[in-house]
Structures are given as structure tokens and as C-alpha cells.
């Protein structure tokens, strides 16, 4: 994920002198590539998923589980196997890349899935084989889990062990050791260092703690054994204090990328999926525990957002503007601030900041206004990964200056221009909010749902646009504990254009009456009053698709799972994890998830994940097929 170029990375101090240069050239590169590629059409739908995994090590004797910081070792082996395949002309079934955590690994299919719905008969099998690919390299006491580790930052949470002392801290963190950051690629440490240096202070997040019957009120943690008071001055009462990028970027997620037919469809689809991102975030909630404490949120989103926040105090509005151009509302990891298709402009109700000169360069370069604003807004973020050898570029053919800023804006959706040098790849859209699920059955189900949604959006030309500020609000609500059941989200009621405007006119100014606050159940499964849920469109689309029996049977299972998660009949992973903790005999109802509980929890999750145990409570009545069935 992101730019993994090689070379000598510059420190933040060294980067400052090049910022303007890089931005100017990044914009020029975009203008060039846009015009070069705007007529590129790719007639096939291709899509692929990215799943992030955590490697854990079980200490059965002491009933303790730790993250196993061996990802680099494993990746070395996998990389050499990959290269061997390449040299022999054999296709690679999977591709593996490093991620932020030294215990993390990201896997993607070796080549993307195609446009036929029959592919859904294979997605789950591929994901299972992918997992096996790592499992064969693990030690007996290790496991690979597609989940975010709940005990980052507790004492002794890594294997091999790491010690944090006042003299040996990772960027000021009193919890997170350097050894837990990926060492095989400088990118991650470099990113962290430059973020902290730019920001001018330690990264931190305060996550509201879940108040249980025995949780102290107010909840104030005693950090004195970790350091001096200035080391945790930002800790707030009634919150779980986290103080390192790893707490966010060390979490795992599921991303899906689609190739669209051309730039027009890409822009339109990017917009249409945007209001749906909060729905999927709530539906996939899987991260309720931070630093071994139950929190009031069920997803990693807000924590990841804060963990990448390189805004200075001025940009955060804490000091009057002197050196900086803007007060910026959001971290560079957050939901988008604008739609990008010309037909959506009426819904852009968030004032966008951008450098006027860069914006004008785009306009003069014949980039239309909505696209120019989107790109110029991305470019308010400074490059954090600059390689000395790559500063000089040929803007006519290189795109790294554009890419470094584009790929370090981590949003709920990403609009991806094709690579100039690979004519086989078209304009793509990346769907990014989804939390990764425990089993491949579920991950395949969520991917299937999202891919089918894109087909339905395109086939029926529905319109789900709401003011972008409401998407921002929805994203906040989606993170709340049990949001899928307890929250309502702004959602468009009238999703079809009328006959007269069918695809022709621009979306007019929005009438308030067209938006309603709906539950996820209503959004997905529809309402009594006839509001067609997302599921209704999907099923209607499938009715006419002449599907093979096997494919339809598989898809039906996936849709049933999603439908029941939406209605609350089946809990999300977050909810299930909370229940597990609550029901554990050793839990003291004080929000603290002891090592023993974490051990039992992850042991159970491991046995469900590898198919040893079928958990009807989490997965419903569906029996994920074993590899031998597939």
C-alpha cells in the first residue's frame, strides 16, 4: 500500500526546502497524466481485495498472547518465492507486502478478479489459500489472524520482547516500542518520524472508555510507572490514552479496488460509493478494544485518523496562524471533503482549502473545476516520504511527486488514475473504510456485497448523493459502539432520478425532504414504506443475471450474512468480542481486559478463523466451506 520506492529518505528538516518544488511538479505530473490517460478505456471490470493480517504468538503456559514481530522474515521468504515464480514465468497466486507493524503483513490476489459474477465462487477459496501460504511458514505457537490486536501497548505485548525505558522510546511513546514497527522497509519509520517532526509534538489519541459497572468514575489511569507527567500530559480522564502511530496504523483493514470503464465512470462511482462508506464501516465493526480496555468505539477509524495526524498546532487551530496557510479540520487520514464528478457539485458543502496557485495551474492545464479542487485539496498535505535520488523527475513520464501526496491522503475513498506505463490498467476506484473480518467467509461476503453494489449502481444509475458534510457526520456516528444497531445515518430517500432528468441534467440543489436519518437495517434491508434497501437492488439485479446455481448459492449466503448483520440478527465482530469479554468468568466489569481474557479471546478467534470451530453466534447458520469442500 502506498509508495514503496527505494532510496535515501529525507528527514523532515531536509524535506522542507523541497516542499514547494514537489507540489508544483506533482501538480504538473497530474495534469500531464490526466490528459494522457483521459481517453483510456478498459472494457473489463477487474477488482481485487487487500487484506491485512496480524501474526500472533501464543504463550500457552502463561496464558498470554503477543504479536510476533517476524513479518520481515516471512516476507523475505515470500519475496524470494515470488521472484522465483517470476523468473520461471509462473503466475503468483498471491502477493505479499509489508505494513506498518513488524507483525503485520498484507496480502492481495496475484492477479485481479474479472468481471464475471462466477468469480464469487472462487474468492473465498483464494483467501483461504492465501492464509495457508503464510501458515506453512509459521511456528507451532504462532497464528495468522485477520484482525487488529487488542493489546497494543500493554506491558510485554511483543515477541521477541522489547523494553521501553525513558531513554529508549519510540517517538516519545510510553507504550509502543520501536521493535514493533516494520524494519524491513524504511518507509514506515520514516513516515512516522516525519509526521511527528512536522507536527512538532507527540502523536496521541484519547479514545472514550466504555464505562462498565465497576469502572472507576471518573476513570483516571496512573501512568507514573511509565514516565514523567509531561510524557502523558495529553491523557484525558475517562479515556484510553494512546500515544503512537502504531495504535492506528498497526490496525488491520480490508480494502477493495475496482477498475472502471473510463474516467467518467470512475468519478461517478467514486461519488456514489462515498455516502455508502459509513454504512460499511458500521456493518464491519471489528475493533472494540484498545490497549486491553473496552472502549466506546467499535472501529479503528478514528484511532487511525489521529495516528497519522501530522497537522501542526496552528493547523489544528490551537495557535494563531503564523507559519501555516490554513486551519485544517481533519487529519490526512479521514473521510473525503468533496465529490469529484461534475454532476455532484451541488452536494459539495464543505469549504475546501487549497493553494490558489496550484489550483490555477490545474485550471490553466485544462483540468475541470471539480477535479482541480479535489487535487488541489489533496495537495494541502506535505510530502512525508521524499527520496533524495528521486527529487529530479521528468514530469512528462514520472508520477512519483503526484503519487507521494496522493497515497499519503488516507481517505474513505480513493480515486486512482492508471499507471502511465501499463496500458492494461484503467481508471480505478478504491473503497477503503471496511474493517477486516475474522474469517475468509466473512471477508469474501463483504467484498461480494461491495462489488455487487458497484454493479447495481452502474446498472440502475441510482443516486445516493447527500451533502458531503453529512457523510462526514455519518462517519463519526459509524464508529460508535454498536452503531449498526444504535445509530441513524443521513441517507438519501429518493435514489432514482425521475424520467425527465434520467442521467441528463446535473443533480439540482438538494431539497431537505429527500434526506432521512435511517438505521443500517433500513438502508440495507429497506423499509416498510417501500424504500428499497441496497439489498433489494442487488437481488433484483441478480434475478436477471442468469447465474449458475453454485454461484447464486454462494452469493446468497454472503448476502444473507450481510443482511443479518445489518438487522442485528447476527452481531458484528466488535459486538461479539465485547460479549466474550463480558461473559468471561475473570472479567471484573471494570473495562479492563486482562492478559488471560485476551489469550482466551484470541484462542477462540483463532479456532474459528482456521475452521476448527464453527461459531454460530458470529457467523449465523452458514457453514463456511472448508478447503476440501471447495
Amino acid at each position: 500500500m502506498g509508495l514503496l520506492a527505494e532510496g535515501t529518505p529525507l528527514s523532515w528538516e531536509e524535506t522542507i526546502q523541497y516542499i514547494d518544488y514537489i507540489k508544483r511538479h506533482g501538480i504538473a505530473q497530474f495534469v500531464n497524466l490526466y490528459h494522457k490517460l483521459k481517453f483510456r478505456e478498459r472494457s473489463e471490470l477487474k477488482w481485487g481485495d487487500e487484506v491485512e493480517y496480524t501474526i500472533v504468538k501464543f504463550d500457552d503456559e502463561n496464558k498470554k498472547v503477543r504479536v510476533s514481530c517476524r513479518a520481515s522474515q516471512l516476507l523475505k521468504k515470500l519475496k524470494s518465492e515470488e521472484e522465483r515464480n517470476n523468473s520461471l514465468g509462473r503466475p503468483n497466486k498471491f502477493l505479499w507486502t509489508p505494513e506498518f507493524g513488524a507483525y503485520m503483513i498484507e496480502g492481495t490476489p496475484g492477479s485481479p478478479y474479472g468481471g464475471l459474477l462466477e468469480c464469487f465462487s472462487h474468492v473465498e477459496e483464494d483467501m483461504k489459500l492465501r492464509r495457508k501460504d503464510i501458515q506453512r511458514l509459521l511456528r507451532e505457537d504462532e497464528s495468522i489472524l485477520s484482525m487488529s490486536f487488542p493489546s497494543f501497548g500493554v506491558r510485554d505485548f511483543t515477541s521477541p520482547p522489547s523494553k521501553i525505558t525513558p531513554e529508549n522510546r519510540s517517538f516519545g511513546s510510553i507504550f509502543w516500542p520501536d521493535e514493533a514497527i516494520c524494519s524491513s522497509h524504511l518507509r514506515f519509520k520514516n513516515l512516522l518520524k516525519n509526521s511527528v517532526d512536522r507536527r512538532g509534538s507527540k502523536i496521541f489519541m484519547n479514545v472514550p472508555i466504555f464505562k462498565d459497572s465497576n469502572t472507576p468514575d471518573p476513570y483516571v489511569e496512573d501512568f507514573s510507572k511509565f514516565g514523567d507527567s509531561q510524557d502523558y500530559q495529553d491523557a484525558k480522564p475517562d479515556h484510553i490514552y494512546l500515544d503512537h502511530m502504531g495504535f492506528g496504523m498497526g490496525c488491520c483493514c480490508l480494502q477493495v479496488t475496482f477498475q472502471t470503464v473510463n474516467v467518467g465512470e470512475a468519478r461517478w462511482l467514486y461519488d456514489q460509493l462515498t455516502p455508502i462508506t459509513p454504512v460499511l464501516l458500521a456493518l464491519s465493526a471489528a475493533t472494540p478494544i484498545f490497549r486491553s480496555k473496552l472502549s466506546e468505539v467499535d472501529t479503528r477509524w478514528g484511532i487511525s485518523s489521529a495516528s497519522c495526524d501530522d497537522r501542526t498546532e496552528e493547523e489544528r487551530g490551537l495557535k494563531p496562524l503564523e507559519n501555516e496557510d490554513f486551519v485544517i479540520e481533519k487529519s490526512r487520514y479521514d473521510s473525503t471533503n468533496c465529490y469529484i464528478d461534475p454532476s455532484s457539485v451541488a452536494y459539495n458543502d464543505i469549504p475546501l482549502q487549497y493553494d490558489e496557485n496550484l489550483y490555477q495551474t490545474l485550471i490553466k492545464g485544462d483540468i475541470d473545476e471539480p477535479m482541480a479542487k479535489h487535487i488541489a485539496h489533496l495537495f494541502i498535505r506535505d510530502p512525508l516520504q521524499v527520496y533524495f535520488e528521486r527529487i529530479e523527475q521528468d514530469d512528462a513520464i514520472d508520477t512519483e511527486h503526484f503519487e507521494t501526496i496522493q497515497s499519503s491522503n488516507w481517505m474513505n475513498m480513493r480515486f486512482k488514475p492508471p499507471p502511465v506505463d501499463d496500458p492494461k490498467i484503467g481508471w480505478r476506484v478504491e473503497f477503503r473504510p471496511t474493517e477486516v473480518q475474522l474469517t475468509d467467509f466473512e471477508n469474501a461476503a463483504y467484498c461480494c456485497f461491495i462489488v455487487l453494489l458497484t454493479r447495481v449502481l452502474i446498472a440502475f444509475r441510482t443516486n445516493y448523493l447527500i451533502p458531503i458534510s453529512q457523510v462526514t457526520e455519518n462517519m463519526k456516528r459509524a464508529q460508535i459502539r454498536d452503531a449498526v444497531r444504535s445509530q441513524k445515518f443521513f441517507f438519501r430517500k429518493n435514489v432514482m432520478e425521475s424520467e425527465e432528468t434520467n442521467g441528463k441534467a446535473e443533480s439540482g440543489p438538494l431539497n431537505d425532504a429527500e434526506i432521512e436519518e435511517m438505521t443500517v437495517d433500513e438502508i440495507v434491508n429497506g423499509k416498510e414504506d417501500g424504500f428499497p434497501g441496497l439489498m433489494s437492488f442487488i437481488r433484483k439485479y441478480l434475478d436477471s443475471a442468469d447465474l449458475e446455481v453454485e454461484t447464486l448459492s454462494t452469493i446468497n449466503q454472503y448476502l444473507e450474512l450481510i443482511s443479518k448483520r445489518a438487522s442485528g440478527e447476527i452481531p458484528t465482530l466488535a459486538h461479539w468480542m465485547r460479549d466474550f469479554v463480558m461473559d468471561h468468568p475473570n472479567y471484573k466489569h471494570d473495562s479492563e481486559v486482562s492478559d488471560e481474557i485476551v489469550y482466551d479471546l484470541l484462542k477462540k478467534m483463532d479456532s474459528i478463523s482456521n475452521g476448527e470451530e464453527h461459531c454460530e453466534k458470529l457467523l449465523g447458520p452458514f457453514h463456511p466451506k472448508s478447503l476440501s469442500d471447495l
Partner: protein
Amino acid sequence: MTICQNFLDNLSRLSKFRLHTGNVNAYTELKLRRFENSAEELSACLDLQLQSTPLTSEFKDDTTLLLCDNAHIDDYERAEIKITMKVFLSSWEASQIEAAISSLKEQLKTKDIEVLILSFPELDVVEGESEEKEIQRWFEKVKPLYESASKLVESSQIGSIGVADFTAAQLSKIIETFDTKPSINHVRLDGCCQVPPELQSLANDHDVQLLVHNDPNPFPTNKIFHTFCELRGQTPPICPLFETTWAARYSVWVRRRSIMASKGYIVQFIRKT
């Protein structure tokens, strides 16, 4: 006189004609509803179309009257799309197959179609007949029609033949008799997703795809139209004068993107004798 009335008056002068709905997904109202089955969809579509101004202007015998705009199919290259037509035969006449094909080719302006699925009429029941005799009698009726379809494959007018709701026994008979094997058996799965195992293994052995449909069997063509007439209230002159024969449902699927470009129905009417 309403425009619809005018349209219906024109129709009543003909001895036979065809109605083509055009792309049913052009209608917002139809897109929003999920139908129990395709007959309901056709019924709702006709309801909608005959309330407003049908587009057609030509009224000749055996004309296919197009009720809505079909132009957008031109957005796609022929190679990108896959045209499937399912014909619901009302009687054991090969001429119905030919008529349906030529009608669709003319309406969609195409030389050929990829898949033709045949939904044969129901066999009348003979009291006390053995299973063996029944299937033999059934086969005698199917044979000339299947042969006719095979010729269409040989002359490249259609790419492959599909059958609908065949049992394992029926499918087996067709496979062992004809050189041009069916590539598809259209099945309805009402709730459960279980195909009888012998049908599944027969299909696997002979490369027959089992594809799922939501068409009622038999397709209630005549009933749809009569229901419509009753709902209109004014009993337009059509109903007593005409009856339906075959009906066809087609879909134009953009192959590599899994998007439907168009879905429509064509219904043949003849004057009652």
C-alpha cells in the same frame, strides 16, 4: 379519444402483431420494485406503457410495435454484449421459434444472438400413462422443435441452445439424441438452492450449465394481457379480438462488466378465429 385509445384502435385493424416493451429498466418505477417473477414484471411494464404514449407509428401485419426507446444499446460494441432470448412457446410449432428469433434480430438490429432458451409448452396429461410412454410422447413433440433450433445453430443465427426446467430424464434424452447438445438448463430454485443430485451430475458430465431463472412455468402470457385489460376498465377492443401466442424475454448483458444493458419482452398476438 386518448392517445392510447388511438393506439389501440389502430391495433384492432390488424390480424397479427407483436408488442415489444423495449428496455424495461428504462422505467424508474420498474427499477425500484423487485418482482416475484418475470410475469409480474411484464405485467407491470405493460401497465405503465399503455398508460402513457406508446412510441410506435407503424401498424402493419406482423409488425413488432416498440413501446419504448431502445437506442442506448448502441452504446456498446456488438462483441461486448451477450444477447440471450428465452422463448415461451404456446404450442408445439417450430414456426414460433423462428418468428421470435427474427423479431428479436430485427428489433435489436443484430445478425445473431448468443443464447436461445426454449421453454416448451406443457404436455397434456394422459390418464394412466406410464412414465416411459409419457417421456416418449413428450420427446416426439420436442424433437422437431429442437431440430429446428439446431439448424439455427448450424446456420450461426444462434450460438447455443438452452432448455428450461428439464428433469434429468428429459435432459438425458435430448443429450443422447442430438449432436447439438443444449449448453444450458434453466432452473427455478424457489427458496431452496438444491438441485436434484442426478440432474447436477448429468449437467457436470455433459457440460450443461444450470442457470437460475425466475420465470413462472408455464409463462402466463394470455393471462397477463387479460388482467391488464380488466384493470384498464374500459375493455378496449383488443381483448375479445386477439389472443397471445408465444412470448419472449431477452436480456442484453455487457459481458466483461456484468452489467445489463437491456431487458425486454416481446409478445405475439393473433386475431381470434
